[in-house]
């Protein structure tokens, strides 16, 4: 991660900000790692930082696959089904089941939310 060889570069601060923008917060990464492991497990700082990079790489990898599918099918928007499909296509079959169920639940909540809005609007009009 420390590949800023030109330490005297006046743009170094900008580079660091750009670096941070393409990574997810290390606190979140660390928290999930801790939860996955036994309570006495220790994790080095470098391991957490490398995991952080791996996480961003995973996003780009799966997104690219989903995006390619959309382009081939002449669609502009990557949706939940595309993402699930990409997970399976790339060998993450174990994740696609839980993610599909999560998507289903998300859509259910969207419908509920829309119904609540409709009820509230109707009451307002009366």
């Amino acid at each position, binding site marked *: 991660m420390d590949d800023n060889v030109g330490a005297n570069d006046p743009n170094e601060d900008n580079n660091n900000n750009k670096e941070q923008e393409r990574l997810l917060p290390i606190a979140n990464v660390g928290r999930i790692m801790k*939860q996955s492991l036994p309570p006495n497990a220790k994790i080095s700082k*470098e391991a957490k930082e490398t995991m952080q990079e791996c996480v961003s790489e995973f*996003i780009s990898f*799966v997104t690219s696959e989903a995006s390619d599918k*959309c382009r081939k099918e002449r669609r502009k928007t990557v*949706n939940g089904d595309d*993402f699930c499909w990409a997970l399976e296509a790339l060998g993450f079959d174990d994740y696609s089941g839980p993610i599909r169920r999560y998507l289903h639940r998300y859509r259910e909540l969207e419908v509920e939310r829309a119904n609540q809005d409709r009820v509230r609007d109707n009451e307002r009009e009366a």
Partner: protein
Amino acid sequence: MRKKLDTRFPAARIKKIMQADEDVGKIALAVPVLVSKALELFLQDLCDRTYEITLQRGAKTMSSLHLKHCVQSYTVFDFLKEVVSRVPDYSHGHSDAGGEDRAISKRSMR
């Protein structure tokens, strides 16, 4: 009372990372939420498998070298090979100039 699905990672940042790729167009609202969930599963997976290596080595602390060897052991993690190639091969990675040189020369050997 609006129910929100519990997401661990910031959706806006996820979206930014996704759209860093110029070829990626619009993204449905549901997607960053799903990505966040998938990331949890992925991290757990990668972590568990790396920790197996940590234990095999008799080490107390998971290091980036264990992670590197984990990536090299499973084809499903091939896409991470470049990320871990920067991890030096001697134990306990400090990122000093020597480590970087080794990483660079390793890359040019491909």
